[in-house]
């Protein structure tokens, strides 16, 4: 998926995650995570995000997340929404969401 702009999804509230993605031509995937539960789940959060980006075919992106203890499914959904917004996709086919 080709990103053309900044994409934001999520909130800073408890059990949610705020995801900001920025396209970065040729820079690979750069991830920065701030989380209350980074010690316990940092590796998992990272894996969920990277897998989601791979599934969406995003290769060159800067991802900033502020996690407030979101579950894996929430993290994946927020990343997907942010990527869609960054790609300028406004018609989403919900039946084939990964």
């Amino acid at each position, binding site marked *: 998926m080709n990103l053309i702009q*900044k994409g*934001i999804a999520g*909130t*800073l*509230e*408890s059990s949610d995650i*705020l995801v*900001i993605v*920025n396209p970065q031509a040729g820079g690979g995937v*750069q991830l*920065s995570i*701030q989380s209350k539960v980074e010690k316990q789940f940092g590796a998992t959060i990272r894996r969920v995000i990277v897998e989601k980006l791979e599934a969406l075919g995003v290769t060159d992106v*800067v991802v*900033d997340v*502020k996690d*407030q203890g979101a579950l894996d499914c929430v993290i994946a959904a927020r990343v997907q929404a942010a990527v869609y917004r960054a790609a300028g996709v406004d018609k989403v086919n919900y039946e084939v969401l990964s």
Partner: protein
Amino acid sequence: MMLRFVRKTHFAAVSIIVISGEDLIDYRTRIEKFLQNNGLDMDARIAKFVVAMNDCDANIVACAGLDGNIVKCVCVDQTYRGSELSLVIGTELVKQAFQDGHDDLFLYTKEKNKQRFNGWGFSPLVVTKGGVTFMEYNKRKLENYLQSLRSKRTSGKCIGSIVMNANPFTKGHRYLVERAAAECDCVHVFMVKEDVSFFRYKDRFKLVKDGLQDLNNVILHPGSDYIVSHATFPQYFIKDKHQVNRQASAVDALMFRQYIAPALGISVRYVGSEPIDETTSMYNCVLKEYLELSTGSAPPVELREMKRLECCGSVISASRVRALMKSESIRPIEALVPKNTFVFIEKYLMTSQKQKEFL
């Protein structure tokens, strides 16, 4: 006014609205009153507010303001503290800032509120002895900036540095850089970026660049968010107004010592001595304390105060040049500034003269 959304809280339904532009004039007094009730002052530079309003009585229950990429005047009503309301307006504020095109956010707060803004996603950069904490949203930005500085690192025993606003660039600035360049292996010159001075940053930068290009051991750095400007330092939460400038200077000095100086291996910082202006002499005093005297995790940076260059009986300063410009006496300026600056000022005064005639 833009209604963003209505939110049911533990207490009552709360509307989150974004106020900017002309609407801000209408709302200003109400927000100011709310802040005052909570022991805070209004900040005149804020251009955008996120406000939470109680739907029952339309009272403001929380607010947060944006001055460029600096978050200011964050306040939540007593009865709503501990609820998620702070995070709700925090989210909205961050989204607004990023939609406005900023890619980083900063804020100053008391140390005891550090934890709260940590919940907003901010990380602390420095803490002064007075308990003022400077925080950044996107810490990767600082790392990237330091990385770009490191690429300009030079070897040598004595690495000097000067931070200047150069509003405008005078013979006094030139003299200070010359002296530093003679004493050091290399001198890094940093510009203050904020466009709140009489001359625009773009013009100030160009005049400095032209004025220093013949000195080959001087490296000029463009302004950055990490060369802290006093103009944007908030005063609203500091009770003792004498402390405002002290704390701003302390943040500036600590950012320099902890992050910028180590990245370039800077060992000395040069400033002009200040015989007249009280604010600047206090600034030099605070710099000495934080850069050189106090112990810290980063190595100390020696502060060298240079006696200022004099002309016609008093020291050369940018404020003296601006005062002369105001009174439109152009001849005396020629002795105070390098040729490039003089040409620029002449042109500037001529166009403003023409504009006046035109009006």
